[in-house]
């Protein structure tokens, strides 16, 4: 078993939007969709990133590490630990993907992965505006797509939840979700009766990523999201802190966004 950070060379960096880039490595890490890696941007920090494909991550530049990551060029390298986490559990014949913002990345990977097994995929994806849209082609290739933008500059106007009216959730064996916490909890609450069929990839503050430091634990069960997640079912999320608060790097409670 490999323990230390592996050196991964960047093959190409595709600018998806002004703030989002896809970084493709020169080899696949053979992840399950929904799994993540800890990406060490040397000299800066180490941060969790979901796979957007077996050999890529899609990064929203929001701070030091993500900015440094997006600034790397082909031929440069990062250290990675992982793949870690449970990933999405595949079940059923017809599935729905609900994503928001850069959260659509692991869903695109999931959709492409299950498509090869003949599963029927519908996607509901939301962005802030037309300029923020990523991976629309990837989702279209998978099946029906419902697109929303907060400002109505493309697709249905409103949050992703605005697209829910276009579909009947009973049609889907399983619902996979990734996006901003408030978006996800909002949808889970709206369709409580389907909560046990929802698998959501969530964010918490990860430090060790090996289930030992306690940084990522979810109240009130103390779920270690870094190893028992990041994919958690909707019913467990409903009974948790999710959507109410989260913890920052110090362990201090913060509001979620």
């Amino acid at each position, binding site marked *: 078993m490999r*323990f*230390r*950070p592996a*050196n991964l060379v960047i093959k190409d960096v595709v600018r998806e939007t002004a703030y989002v880039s896809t970084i493709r490595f020169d080899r696949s890490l053979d992840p399950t969709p929904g799994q993540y890696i*800890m990406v*060490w941007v*040397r*000299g*800066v*920090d*180490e*941060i969790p990133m979901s796979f957007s494909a077996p050999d890529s991550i899609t990064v929203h530049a929001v701070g030091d590490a993500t900015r440094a990551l997006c600034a790397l060029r082909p031929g440069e*390298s990062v*250290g990675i*630990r992982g793949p870690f986490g449970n990933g999405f559990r595949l079940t059923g014949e017809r599935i729905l993907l609900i994503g928001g913002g850069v959260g659509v990345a692991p869903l695109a990977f999931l959709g492409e992965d299950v498509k090869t097994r003949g599963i029927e995929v519908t996607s509901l994806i939301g962005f802030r505006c037309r300029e923020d849209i990523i991976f629309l082609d990837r989702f279209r290739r998978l099946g029906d797509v419902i697109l929303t933008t907060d400002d109505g500059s493309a697709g249905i106007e409103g949050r992703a939840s605005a697209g829910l009216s276009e579909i009947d959730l009973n049609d889907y064996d399983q619902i996979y979700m990734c996006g901003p916490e408030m978006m996800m909890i909002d949808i889970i609450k709206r369709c409580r009766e389907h909560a046990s069929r929802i698998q959501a990839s969530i964010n918490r503050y990860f*430090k*060790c*990523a*090996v*289930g*030992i*430091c*306690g*940084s990522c*634990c*979810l*109240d*009130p*069960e*103390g779920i*270690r999201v870094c190893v028992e997640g990041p994919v958690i079912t909707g019913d467990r999320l409903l009974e948790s802190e999710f959507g109410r608060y989260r*913890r*920052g*790097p*110090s*362990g*201090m*409670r913060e509001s979620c966004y």
Partner: protein
Amino acid sequence: MPSLSGDVGGLRLENPLILAAGILGTTGASMRRVALAGAGAVVTKSIGVEPRDGHPGPTVVRLGVGLINAMGLPNPSYRVFQEEIDVAREGGVPVVASIFGSSPEEFAEIASALDADGFELNLSCPHAEGYGMEIGCDPANVEEITRAVRRAVSVPVWVKLTPNVTDIRVLGIAAQRGGADAVVAINTLKAMAIDVESGYPILGNVIGGLSGPAIKPVALRCVYELSGALEIPVIGVGGVSCWQDAVEMIMAGAAGVQIGTALMGGLEVIGEITNGISRFLDRKGWSLDDIRGIARRRGSSASSKEYPLSASSTTSKSFDEGETHKEVL
């Protein structure tokens, strides 16, 4: 099954296995979960005066022989931590608050403000400037800080020592003089790892603390030395990952045994260890008291070259070969 309950450093525990400081100890819910998984007591993440985010990542390096960490004492400060302790207590076992500060006054301030079943003074973290071992290497500091907390609270006070010194007994004696109810040994060994592909030190903080199987032989030696030098109990910690490790610690003289890095393998290890100790005592017909410190009694006969005592009158068949010491993570 023999009883594993008893007094450990002033606390009555159902079993001597205790969650180590800084392991799954940030939130009350996660400590409660560890308690429900079978720990005899839990120790919180080390808590200080002000909130700290900790060091930049990577904060851990996993090795085949253990783990190096430089978390950097992230904590939300004692001002918001009482609620976590209260939730942790729902686990039904004593909750010991690990605390750190840069002076006796800071330690006393935190201890006075928190309601916990005991306090563990972190005088041993090897990677936080101005805290931990930086002050805990000096016996005068250890004594003074222990005394300050001892005066501030009425619950048991444990002092966690650093092995990164020439003679850990000197620190143990200082803690005892300051009024500690127990010492806890050991915190991590100062260590580092380098990424050969890039030349970068892996840890964000460059230097961190080594834990896990690698340090168990050192921890055991410290427990043996301390328990020979002190009148107060010694709580052993460092690399315990199977019941044999825990038994070794107790045989070296430990009153209780803490577990940290091994929880990386899941919380089940807690039950495996306590069950393992029970089965071992059962097979041998021994009690915890029988084996505590036995290594010193045996060890002294080694040098005097007396005839050996019989080790056991049971057959080795009952010793399942599958139960050999698990030396590696």
